[in-house]
């Protein structure tokens, strides 16, 4: 397997081709077989490769499998090559197995949708591209996957393509991501121009060999710009909440567990560069912290079950960036893993809720679902506890590790305290909005229509099994940190956290988790929707601002999109017309001159004779 790493993405790619070309004709049975099976085989192939790797490289060295030379010019070139090392392995396992579970879930969830075959072919293509992203051995190959997952995200967000908001959201996602890709591209140009390569290891090696710090900082910041696009950080986070227009399993797979975490991978992968550029690290940490708290506050006032989870994802990704930003790369990746479990569980759970509610997504019309859909409710509760950060569930460990590292980081110790503080407050909000969501959805009494109540039902096994597995992962994920297992395995650079700081962070984390939950219970667990109404009465301006997400979308429209369109229109109607006008003027001048000259050519012999005579006089007068 190790010498055929390309097979791992090739299997879902094959699934994509089969479903895309024949799925419509051969029917849903065929599609339900090919879609999940190809992702399962890919997961198995990946796992086999991991086991072989473990056997062959006990020291965690990098294994590279070159497929062929892709772009070449003299000495500079880039191979299409895949690699396996501990970091890639972590991503590989998360992507393939969570991916498989969500494929399985989709069989149930999407069963009655038109375009079932289309859905699975896109989903398979996504898996293939995501695997290219995490297995690529150079920034360029990573970029191939990076753009590919962006495409799939675009297609899947716009899956319900006859809905205007869905397709607009898809386009927005792609274009906003392209702004990030601009940074990724320019970073690669810099690497090629100054290092002559984009291979992960070689770039790190050359950079460590001593180059201008400014260059490394520029590369790091540009890569991070790419990351803010894909991982929905300030200022490019705006696409992710809209992306919820896609089918719910897609939100779980792409917009929670895998694709959006690619940005975190993108910081952890070139950690050697980032450590040379502490300024860039600081930017990452600050942006992460701001995004974490910013999105968390918005999450408090959203009423669409998926929107709450979307802002929660943005916020949690912020936590991951705090982790990698303070140089605690392992902690960032750890949170990536645990988040993949509990957030996928939450999204799939929300899908199960929506399924039960006959398509309803507004939590104001839910309530009292605890008894009606028990498996969903239990797994949702477990994941909620995990994300809120209660020990000993997985979210506690990974979040705590991030916050403790922020407090202790050696790169910018003074700022670290502030980042820790912001992160801790964000954690308080996290517990609060998640339990608000939980109580409003499952607690109290049912607020929907009778028809909806009549239809309430637990989902089929294809949907509940993934929920249970993911909930188990949410509980047990914290075990990865036992004996520093993940840290030793990943071998990413790290630093010591003094016991005092570690305890401080841990106690603070626990307290805010309890506090947030208690507030949520006191308000929404007891009073239900009335709590929201009271908020609106007491602080209408704050409530409205949060509800409207701080008006950032409106601001972008007014400040960027509209002026750009106006300017473009000016170029078209103004400049282009001006150029044509100048040329037309040239034409008129020629025509006018011709008209004037025409008077000379009267065809009248007497006129010619007269001119001849005048000419002779003039000549005589000049020369005589």
């Amino acid at each position, binding site marked *: 397997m190790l010498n055929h790493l390309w097979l791992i993405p090739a299997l879902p790619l094959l699934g994509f081709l089969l479903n895309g070309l024949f799925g419509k004709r051969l029917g849903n049975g065929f599609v339900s077989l090919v879609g999940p099976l190809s992702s399962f085989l890919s997961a198995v192939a990946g796992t086999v490769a991991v086991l072989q790797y473990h056997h062959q490289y006990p020291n965690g060295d990098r294994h590279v499998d070159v497929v062929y030379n892709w772009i070449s010019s003299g000495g500079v070139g880039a191979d299409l090559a895949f690699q396996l090392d501990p970091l890639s392995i972590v991503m590989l396992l998360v992507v393939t197995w969570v991916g498989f579970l969500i494929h399985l879930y989709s069989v149930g969830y999407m069963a009655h949708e038109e375009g079932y075959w289309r859905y699975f072919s896109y989903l398979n293509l996504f898996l293939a591209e995501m695997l290219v992203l995490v297995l690529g051995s150079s920034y360029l190959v990573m970029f191939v996957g990076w753009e590919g997952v962006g495409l799939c995200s*675009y297609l899947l967000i716009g899956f319900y393509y006859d809905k205007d908001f869905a397709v607009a959201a898809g386009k927005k996602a792609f274009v906003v991501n392209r702004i990030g890709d601009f940074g990724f*591209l320019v970073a690669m140009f810099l690497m090629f121009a100054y290092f002559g390569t984009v291979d992960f290891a070689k770039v790190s090696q050359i950079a460590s060999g001593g180059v201008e710090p400014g260059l490394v900082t520029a590369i790091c910041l540009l890569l991070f710009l790419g990351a803010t696009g894909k991982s929905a950080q300030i200022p490019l986070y705006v696409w992710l909440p809209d992306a919820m227009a896609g089918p719910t399993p897609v939100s779980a797979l792409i917009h929670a567990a895998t694709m959006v975490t690619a940005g975190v991978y993108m910081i952890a992968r070139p950690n050697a560069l980032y450590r040379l550029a502490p300024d860039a690290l600081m930017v990452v940490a600050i942006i992460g912290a701001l995004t974490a708290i910013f999105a968390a506050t918005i999450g408090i006032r959203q009423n669409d079950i998926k929107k709450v989870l979307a802002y929660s994802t943005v916020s949690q990704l912020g936590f991951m960036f705090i982790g990698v930003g303070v140089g605690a790369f392992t902690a960032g990746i750890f949170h990536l893993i645990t988040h993949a479990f509990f957030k996928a569980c939450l999204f799939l759970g929300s899908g199960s809720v929506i399924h039960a509610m006959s398509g309803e997504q507004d939590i104001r019309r839910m309530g009292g679902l605890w008894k009606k859909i028990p498996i969903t409710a239990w797994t949702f509760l477990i994941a909620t506890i995990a994300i809120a950060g209660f020990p000993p569930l997985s979210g506690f460990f990974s979040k705590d590790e991030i916050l403790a590292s922020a407090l202790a980081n050696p790169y910018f110790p003074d700022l670290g305290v502030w980042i820790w503080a912001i992160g801790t407050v964000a954690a308080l909000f996290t517990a609060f909005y998640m339990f608000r969501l939980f109580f409003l959805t499952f607690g109290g009494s049912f607020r929907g229509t009778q028809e909806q109540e009549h239809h309430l039902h637990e989902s089929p096994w294809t949907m509940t099994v993934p929920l249970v597995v993911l909930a188990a992962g949410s509980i047990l994920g914290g075990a990865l940190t036992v004996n520093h297992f993940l840290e030793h395995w990943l071998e990413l650079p790290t630093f010591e956290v003094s016991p005092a700081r570690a305890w401080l962070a841990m106690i603070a984390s626990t307290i805010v988790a309890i506090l947030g939950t208690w507030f949520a219970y006191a308000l929404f667990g007891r009073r239900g929707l009335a709590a929201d109404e009271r908020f609106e009465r007491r602080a209408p301006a704050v409530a409205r601002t949060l509800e409207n997400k701080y008006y950032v979308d409106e601001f972008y429209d007014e400040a960027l999109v509209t002026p750009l369109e106006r300017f473009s229109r000016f170029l078209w109607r103004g400049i282009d017309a001006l150029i044509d006008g100048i040329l037309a003027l040239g034409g008129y001048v020629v025509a006018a001159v011709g008209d004037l000259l025409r008077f000379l050519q009267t065809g009248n012999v007497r006129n010619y004779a007269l001119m001849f005579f005048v000419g002779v006089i003039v000549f005589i007068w000049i020369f005589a």
Partner: protein
Amino acid sequence: MGILNIVTYTPLLGAAVILFFIRSDNPKMIRYAATIFATVDFIVSLFLWWGFDPNASGSRLFQFRFVRDWIPSLGVKYDFGIDGIALLLIVLTTFMGLIAIVSSFSAINFREKEYYVLLLLLQTGMIGTFCALDFFLFYVFWEVMLVPMYFIIGIWGGPRKLYAAIKFFLFTLAGSVLMLLSILALYFFNDDGIPFLHIRGLGNGYTFSVLQYHNIGHLIPPSLQFWIFLGFFFGFAIKVPMFPFHTWLPDAHTEAPTAGSIILAAVLLKMGTYGFVRFALPILPDATRQLILPIVVLSIIGIIYGALVTLVQKDMKRLIAYSSVSHLGFVMLGMFALNPMGLKGSVIQMINHGISTGALFLLVGIIYERRHSRDIADYGGLAKQMPMYATLFLIAALSSMGLPALNGFIGEFTILLGVANRNIWWAVFAAIGIVLGAAYLLWLYQRVFWGPLDNPANRTVRDLNRRELAMLVALSAVMVWIGIYPKPIFEVIEKPVEYVMGKVDPAYMNRPPIQYPAAVAEAEASK
């Protein structure tokens, strides 16, 4: 006989056969004949590639040479020969020529005989232009292209066809006249009445031989080079078209019939860029290096300006036409990075743009035939009614916006790599065009294919028929092939690019490509 003659004149033969042996009231027969000749031509061009030696360099770089005296008293020769760049463009021409003919089956329904004769004549002109290694011969073919295109736009075009045709003709003609002046300046360039070549011992009389000029270019005084370059520049820049000479393009493209747009985008625009690579760069190295900055600035303006204007178009065809301004800006920028990487990217992007934009024009033509509207606002929700069409349109759009694993990315990326090697800021500005590229194409896609299918006229359109599907699948296959495995293309242009670089900037080739050699050495040592 020369295989280049076969590939050049097969379409002409076809035109003659149709003209003399097929009655004009038998359009079916005319179509078949045109298709057969175009297919044969395409196959011959594939043999050309098959027989081409990508490793040949030096005097053997130009292959399949066919040289005969033509007008000895003027030093005019009939000189054919191609390097890898011309080879690729010829294969592109025969391929897109065939597509253009097949795409016209249902689109053209009056005066078919003249139409296919002109289309085939045009193809001979294009291929001849790429083969010619004698300025006189080149100019003849260059002008041969102009006339059929003028008629194709003027007779079978849209509502404003006459305006567009005349505009196209005048712009191009103005350019070619200036180019002719430059050619004559080279020709008559002498020292006290003795031809320059003679003085240098390179020949004994006046000549139009391009390869001769390649060898003596660097001896021409820079001040003279500058003026000659300017003449070439106008000739080629109008054809490309570079900002601000681009305003003929949207009109010509929009009004031309589908096949005309395909050929115009795929091949005719490349005449300008090809002209720069073949003539301006190697013959006038000093002027080229001197004028890098203004040309780069115009190219970058073209990239961003073209993309912005594309963003606000309401007519599908005009939208794609404007996007060409942006794409050709990339081609010019890569070329004037004046390093091997940029030049290679530039050549590859010429091919890619031909394939992708050609495909987009074909796609727009297909829907136009059904609905007789190019107005974006008339559409929406077509994906439901025409799923195959929607899928293939998406592939072409993605290729055009440079999605990795499709052809457009290979070209754009290689260009920008080369550009970044010369000046990172140029690459930064140009990369903005990539962001905008996604914006205008996806917006177009969204408005045409997605959303509710609310225009009743769109509820009855048919999806692709077999003929259309075959053309689009072939084009898509090429997009995927070049995107995933571009090696064969890189191979054939390696030597020609070295050749051009050796002429235009010999010093560059000796420069170290990496600016941190110490760091690299250290890295190597630590392994």
